[in-house]
């Protein structure tokens, strides 16, 4: 499971946690997050997220 960070506001999407309040179940891989999903904190598209290096 990986995490992705919004380059604009720093919001973190964690695949393990998902985003249940937006209908994205825990364990949802980043690739499977709908393209229409936008950052809950700043509204940018999925393309503006990048993988967090561990």
């Amino acid at each position, binding site marked *: 499971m990986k995490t992705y960070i919004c380059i604009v506001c720093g919001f973190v999407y964690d695949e393990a946690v998902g985003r249940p309040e937006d209908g994205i179940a825990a364990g949802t891989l980043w690739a499977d997050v709908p393209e229409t999903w936008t950052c809950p*904190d700043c509204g940018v598209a999925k393309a503006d997220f990048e993988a967090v290096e561990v």
Partner: protein
Amino acid sequence: MSTPALVIVGAGLAGWTTAREFRKLDTSTPVVLVTADSGDFYAKPTLSNACAQKRLAEQLVTTPAAKMAETLNVRLLAHSQMQAVDAAAHSLTVTHADGSSETLAYRQLVLATGAHPIKVPMQGAAAAQVQSINQLTDLAQFQQALGTSPKTLLVMGAGLIGCEFANDLVLGGHTVHVVDPATRPLAALLPAAASEQLQAALHALGVVWHLGTTVQSLSPRADGGGLSATLANGHAVSADLVLSAVGLRADTAVAHAAGLQCERGVVVDDLLHTSAPDIFALGDCAQYASAGGRTLPYVMPIMNAARALASTLAGTPTPLVFPLMPVSVKTPAWPIVVAAPDPRLAGGWMAEDLDAEAAQAGGAWRFMDAEGQQRGFVLTGKQSTRRMELSKTTVL
């Protein structure tokens, strides 16, 4: 004089996002971006959660300035200061780091100069040692002073940024004191009960609150170790570092000198147009007609403003209409989402009835106006996941 270009002053989120959105609509007009700093792009909200994540200031940069400039086909003038704007001549003077200066002609000028941390006047020989963090270089300086061992910190201000830093620093292993003249944290944003929850959650992590008082003076400690703050309530607090997070004041100096109408910020209409022809402003330096003359120093308003402005600059006048913009307060000890009602609205907060167990873990409040319509909300703790649901029932 160079070819008239779109000139953007400021390389924060507002400046870069305007350039990026403009380039989506217009790939040929020259764009010049002037910035007093390096121009590196980073997510500003990460300034206040870097400590717990053990990230250094330079690690927050997501795209280096040169890469931004190349991708967006922008001429970047880094480490350069805007000195003056001649609105009648459509030109501005810029001084570079090497002392040389340059006059730039503009077709349109965008002011995205941001804001400065407000400095509270105080007495004492160490008053000048108070730090503020509003940009990457501030954070780098603060982290250097912080070092690697646990420290005792005094945070001035229990607003959004003060609370975020308090939470971040306490998670980073430091001892944190917070001073604020209000009697509760986030007093301007939250109903009292929500403030009290946050206060208790941060207290449980070790944050020491000094509410309803201010720092009167800051002096070096007599024993040579760190600083000693004297509060208006008579108490003394020893600290290694003092961080001020009492708020921001829009940077309007050059705009004001150029004759642009400025109040709390550079005054802009719903097209983000200032009082001078072809000069626009957005971000922390602007006060928006679209927000009833308020400044809105948050990410979401900047993103909305930059999109509308880019469209206007590219030839399609696009009035800025802000949608509902809930703000997440990054206090992991007690997560909070606030959709603040317009401060001019009469009304009051109504708490949702939760069962005892749920009420322990969070809270939900709706701001109801005189007509009984919901105009804002606050969600805390476990309830903070209900942002979508409450957004739908909020009337703008």
